């Protein structure tokens, strides 16, 4: 008890304790067990034309073994790294499990990665085999530079080398593969996921079988009361993202059917086809569904009704908290349920009960809106380094605006400077071959330093309030380091300043200022000669010139991190306007506020 009159802020909170992991724990166990005990159970589904084709646990494991043997036949030794670059599809998951079964380590590469990023990951990860989805990806990689003495071997999913790999594996005995599987344990490295820091090259987060499997158990412990025997999920986030990965693994462990979406543009259609009961999504998806429903209502002349219905849903949720599903206690809510909410639910296929949201902050209002509509959004918190989940909102412990309470076996502490620290069995061992970065990320008492700032309320809910890392997190959940992009843009002689924006926005954009002195002497054909920068911010010749600098910066990053739009500001940043501190440090938050309308224009809102 806190002595009367003394206000004490909670600085540490732990989930329920958990037993240590059995040393033999590995990620293959649930797949093998399911294939043995319920071989006919549908485990996955993929789209073929106008319908989804089921894949049973037995079929899945059989295909997985065939590929794993091919990998063994190709000479991969236990611990060897195999990079995997593909959109989210059945083969991604098959390859992931096949790599693990062969004793290998999966190194995911985003399908939208640039050639520079591919080269870096293959080089730094010392990758022995590179699995890419398309021949275009192989060409992108090969076009970027020399391969070191035939390594890595490249396998293309779409051009038949997959079959060749399986044929190669026919010579490998079952017992050889079984030995590889039996030698897996909690401490075996399962994956190395590259994440961008604020500066420098991406670093590889080393996660073991134990890290990921325990995070699956922790997640199921938190949400188990919501899970039913016949869950169906629609998988559409990139599996290179650890949130998508862990929710997929939760589905495998639970025995859910995981249906693979084909393309973001077909998402609405596939929600209707698959009718998922659970999904993992990023804030952008929820925004899109909300905005889509709102716009549709407006077009149909029901804009006012929709807005009223949204208010009622939010109010209803604030009153009723985490009760599920909506007991229709208010007449208004019941009315709008038929008129509006059913349509929003229909956008998700009509059967969705809950959705994990991660990757970035989802607004409290939107969380309440979806809850009021009948879709429980479970916002959680974690990093790639933490497998990822540390905290999550759950049934009975659901507080929108926070990221929930600590998972079982997990402790959260707030450092004196506000930084969120964490301990738990899901926390990684370190960065791949980077001792210095690893030691910097743990404090003297072995707490993992998240780099985020937050506080714990009296009930132990974690709220994220800031960030120590100079990073932008887009609404699509992509972490983008602005500094390296800005450096490359500023290398252009005409440009004095670049401020990259995009936090909680759908994509990354940039505000550019022009060097007045360089501009005065700039004399390209079609140049707006003799004018001031402030008169020329829309001049095509100037915009084209700036675009070359943007293009150069974009070479270094994936499409998700690339700058899609920019605006040229009429003058340099100034102290008088507060955009710079008196000693000329750039204040991003002030710049973003001062140029709010310019930024809104970039995002077309």
């Amino acid at each position, binding site marked *: 008890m806190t002595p009367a009159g003394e206000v004490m802020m909670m600085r540490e909170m732990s989930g329920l304790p958990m037993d240590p992991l059995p040393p033999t724990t590995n990620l293959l166990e649930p797949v093998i067990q399911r294939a043995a005990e319920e071989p006919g159970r549908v485990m996955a589904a993929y789209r073929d034309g106008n319908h989804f084709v089921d894949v049973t646990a037995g079929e899945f494991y059989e295909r997985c073994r065939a590929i794993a043997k091919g990998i063994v036949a190709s000479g991969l030794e236990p611990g060897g790294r195999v990079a995997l670059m593909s959109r989210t599809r059945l083969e991604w998951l098959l390859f992931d499990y096949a790599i693990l079964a062969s004793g290998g380590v999966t190194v995911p590469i985003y399908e939208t990665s640039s050639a520079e990023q591919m080269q870096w990951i293959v080089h730094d990860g010392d990758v022995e085999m590179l699995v890419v989805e398309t021949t275009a990806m192989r060409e992108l990689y090969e076009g970027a530079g020399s391969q070191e003495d035939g390594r890595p071997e490249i396998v293309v999913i779409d051009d038949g080398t997959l079959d060749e790999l399986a044929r190669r594996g026919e010579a490998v005995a079952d017992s050889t593969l079984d030995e590889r599987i039996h030698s897996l344990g909690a401490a075996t490295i399962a994956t190395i996921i590259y994440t961008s820091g604020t500066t420098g090259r991406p670093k590889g987060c080393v996660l073991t079988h134990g890290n990921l499997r325990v995070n699956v158990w922790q997640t199921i412990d938190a949400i188990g009361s919501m899970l039913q025997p016949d869950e169906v999920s629609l998988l559409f986030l990139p599996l290179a993202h650890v949130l998508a990965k862990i929710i997929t693994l939760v589905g495998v462990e639970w025995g859910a059917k995981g249906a693979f979406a084909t393309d973001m543009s077909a998402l609405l259609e596939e929600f209707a086809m698959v009718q998922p009961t659970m999904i993992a999504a990023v804030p952008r998806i929820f925004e899109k569904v909300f905005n889509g429903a709102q716009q549709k209502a407006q077009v149909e002349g029901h804009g006012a009704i929709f807005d009223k219905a949204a208010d009622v849903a939010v109010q209803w949720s604030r009153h009723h908290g985490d009760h599920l599903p909506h007991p229709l206690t208010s007449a208004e809510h019941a009315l709008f349920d038929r008129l509006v909410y059913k349509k929003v639910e229909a956008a998700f296929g009509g059967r969705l009960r809950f959705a994990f949201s991660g990757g970035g902050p989802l607004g409290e209002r939107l969380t309440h809106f979806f809850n009021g509509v009948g879709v429980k959004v479970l916002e959680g918190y974690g990093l790639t380094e933490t497998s990822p989940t540390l905290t999550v909102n759950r049934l009975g412990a659901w507080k929108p605006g926070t990221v929930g309470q600590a998972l079982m076996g997990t402790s959260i502490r707030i450092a004196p400077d506000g930084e969120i620290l964490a301990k738990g069995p899901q926390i990684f061992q370190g960065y791949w071959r980077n001792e210095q970065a690893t030691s910097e990320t743990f404090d003297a008492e072995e707490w993992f330093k998240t780099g985020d700032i937050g506080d714990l309320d009296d009930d132990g809910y974690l709220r994220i309030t800031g*960030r*120590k*890392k100079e990073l932008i997190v887009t609404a699509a959940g992509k972490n983008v380091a602005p500094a390296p992009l800005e450096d490359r843009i500023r290398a252009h002689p005409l440009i004095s300043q670049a401020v990259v924006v995009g936090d909680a926005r759908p994509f990354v954009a940039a505000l550019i200022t022009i060097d007045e002195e360089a501009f005065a002497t700039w004399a390209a054909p079609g140049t707006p000669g003799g004018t001031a920068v402030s008169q020329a911010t829309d001049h095509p010749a100037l915009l084209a010139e700036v675009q070359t600098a943007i293009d150069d910066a974009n070479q270094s990053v994936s499409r998700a991190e690339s700058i899609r739009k920019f605006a040229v500001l009429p003058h*340099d940043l100034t*102290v008088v306007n507060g955009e710079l*501190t008196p000693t000329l440090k750039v204040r*991003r938050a002030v710049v973003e506020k001062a140029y709010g309308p310019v930024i809104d224009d970039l995002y077309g809102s």
Partner: protein
Amino acid sequence: MSESLPTSGPMGSIHELTDETRVLVRPLQHSDRHELAIGYEHLSAEARRLRFFTAPSRLSDADLEYLTNLDYRDHFAWAAFAIDEPGQPGIAVARYIRDPSHPNHAEVAVTVLDDYQHRGLGTLLLEMLADQARRNGITTFVSHILWDNREVLETMAAAGARIEPEEPGVARVAIEIPAPESPTLVSLIRAALRAFGRVTREVLQSGTEPTPEADEVQPE
């Protein structure tokens, strides 16, 4: 405006760094513009980022004018020169600028060229800047520092600074400037010494008296 030094006030002094490099520290002058522009060109990309956050590729004429047009009361800066090297290049600047809305607060920025870091120069300049600020009625130094700038933040924290989150990536650091005879200055310097190594001061020429605590600053 102020093209020359005020008639009364600090003059230059020569100091020895931890590796025995000798530096001249004197108030920055308007005529140092060119030196400042060159110094900026020699700053690494990372050092520029730590100093300006999103740093321009070069300092414009307007920036240079702003940074060298000092009144030595509301805007003061020390400049350090490596006097034993050819051309006696400028190697560091430490400045404060008073906050018009909180006249007893000032923003501080200290920049040391990469090759001269980790020799106690930043700490020395900060201490000299505090002396000067105190004389001009400033009680608190405020600085905006990237969290990536771990060494500086750790030193400031050890010296009793209040450090709080500001916008993403940035910490706001506030430290009270102790009275000259106050033991907290000694503890500040000791903390800094632990982080940066020993600083010895050889005051050859100074408009100010040697500070009494200088003698107390010995390694423990």
